[in-house]
């Protein structure tokens, strides 16, 4: 056992949080059912890690919802939930180089060449309307063909055949660029698809380190120890030692095929895709592997990590220029991608408007930013909307930027992914008289709480 192992994390999290891990023994079909169960928990505002032990037609269990809660991520970092954003920011800047380990468990069973058959894995279908079964928790690992710097990121993978997957690199970040560089040299890009990873690796994969820093170094910082990595068998790449399953192969140069539709984080089916094609050379698995799935669409398993990362990056960026950032929230209502609420304690006039372009520049997905005073609870959207209703004048407090780089999956963006951006200054004018907010006497608040509790409320 290793503390960098998903199984260890699940076991320890379940012990620390009774009810935090649910083992389902009843048979569950790969056709929509596991996603439906995840959604039902979501409706009940519960986010247990779920191990589907009896998948119909497969001997391999599915682990799901590992990334669904702030509590699980806080546990992964070993901190309280309240400390999570600051600790995430702090550790993301502490790069630790990985260490190489021989004989990783994922080399226990290796299929190569014509024996490769991805359809033997329990690849689920998520929504009616999806084009095919999909891998959602496949972390793609590759190296920059020019510099050799490694990257890792999540991309949807459509099952197309025993050794073929469709892949969309629509986030247009490092993997997209590495593939473009390889293609310019007339080469396929070697890629490993890694499944079944500790949540810290998910946090690292989503990060934005400088171009010369690999995601494995970020993971080391988050673990506070070197990430253990091991060599693939058929391609020149290193992957996390404690992975459950590794699929080795290449993204083919100059090959594009239809991919999608797929239920995306936006809450819509997406037909937009970069339409790349991955060809598998080998499948490596540990003994009795777990197949990891990330719930599709707007479920927390899919979008919570994105929110956490954006909150951390926004906090880091804004704190450089504003001394008093109180809270940052990237809400599910904005698909954990498009919207950010930032509360600040104003100390100088104009700080709120100064901050707007800084927040929008953190991430090209962000398209609506609201800056609020520190008396507003950014995690309470009713409070945020009240501030907008009572502190905003549209002719002076709203800034828009037309035709900016946006998310290609945003259905309101152009086909090229261009989007307008909006910043709202919902703060009170600094240093000027403004309406006095209603506030109950704190002693009476405490008295009323006790009173209502005594009544059984």
């Amino acid at each position: 056992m290793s503390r960098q192992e998903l199984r260890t994390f699940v076991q320890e999290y379940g012990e620390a949080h009774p009810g935090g891990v649910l083992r389902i023994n009843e048979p569950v079909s790969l056709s929509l059912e596991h996603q439906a169960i995840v959604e039902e928990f979501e409706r009940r505002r519960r986010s247990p890690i779920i191990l589907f032990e009896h998948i119909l037609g497969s001997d391999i269990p599915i682990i799901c919802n590992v990334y669904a809660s702030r509590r699980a991520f806080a546990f992964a970092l070993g901190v309280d939930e309240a400390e999570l954003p600051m600790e995430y920011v702090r550790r993301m800047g502490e790069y630790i180089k990985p260490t190489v380990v021989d004989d990783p468990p994922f080399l226990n069973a290796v299929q190569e060449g014509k024996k490769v058959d991805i359809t033997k894995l329990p690849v689920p279908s998520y929504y009616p309307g999806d084009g095919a079964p999909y891998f959602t928790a496949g972390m793609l690992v590759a190296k920059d063909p020019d510099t050799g710097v490694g990257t890792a990121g999540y991309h949807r993978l459509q099952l197309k055949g025993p050794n073929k997957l469709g892949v969309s690199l629509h986030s247009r970040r490092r993997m997209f660029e590495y593939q473009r560089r390889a293609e310019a040299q007339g080469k396929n890009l070697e890629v490993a698809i890694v499944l079944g990873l500790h949540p810290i690796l998910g946090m690292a994969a989503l990060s934005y380190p400088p171009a010369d820093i690999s995601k494995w170094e970020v993971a080391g910082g988050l673990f506070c120890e070197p990430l253990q990595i091991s060599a693939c068998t058929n391609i020149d790449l290193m992957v996390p030692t404690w992975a459950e399953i590794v699929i080795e192969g290449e993204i083919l140069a100059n090959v594009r095929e239809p991919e999608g539709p797929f239920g995306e984080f936006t809450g819509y089916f997406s037909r937009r895709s970069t339409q790349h094609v991955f060809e598998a050379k080998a499948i490596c698995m540990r003994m009795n592997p777990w197949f990891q799935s990330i719930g599709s669409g707007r479920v927390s398993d899919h979008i919570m990590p994105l929110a956490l990362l954006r909150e951390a990056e926004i906090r880091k960026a804004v704190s450089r220029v504003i001394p008093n950032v109180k809270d940052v929230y990237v809400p599910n209502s904005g698909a954990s991608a498009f919207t950010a609420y930032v509360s600040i304690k104003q100390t100088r006039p104009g700080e709120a408007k100064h901050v707007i372009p800084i927040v929008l520049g953190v991430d090209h997905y962000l398209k609506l930013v609201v800056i609020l005073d520190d008396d507003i609870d950014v995690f309470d959207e009713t409070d945020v909307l009240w501030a907008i209703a009572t502190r905003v004048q549209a002719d002076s407090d709203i800034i828009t930027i037309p035709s900016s780089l946006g998310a290609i999956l945003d259905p309101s963006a152009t086909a090229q992914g261009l989007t307008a951006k909006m910043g709202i200054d919902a703060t009170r004018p600094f240093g000027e008289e403004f309406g006095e907010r209603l506030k109950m006497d704190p002693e009476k608040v405490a008295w009323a709480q006790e009173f209502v509790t005594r009544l059984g409320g």
Partner: protein
Amino acid sequence: MSDKEVNRVEKQIVQLATSRPVFYSDILHELKGEDYRTIMLAFGQIRTKKLFDRDKQGRYVVKSSS
């Protein structure tokens, strides 16, 4: 499973898509007695042969030339 099984399911899928446009989930629903993996393999064969197009809703339809 055998190639014969996969070919049989492939024919069923093509028949289904000939009768009406279908999502992948419709195929899974209509062929729910069949093994999930057999359907994946059969659908893979259909892709390789490029037998299907998509309509505006993203449903699979048999190519007119097929």
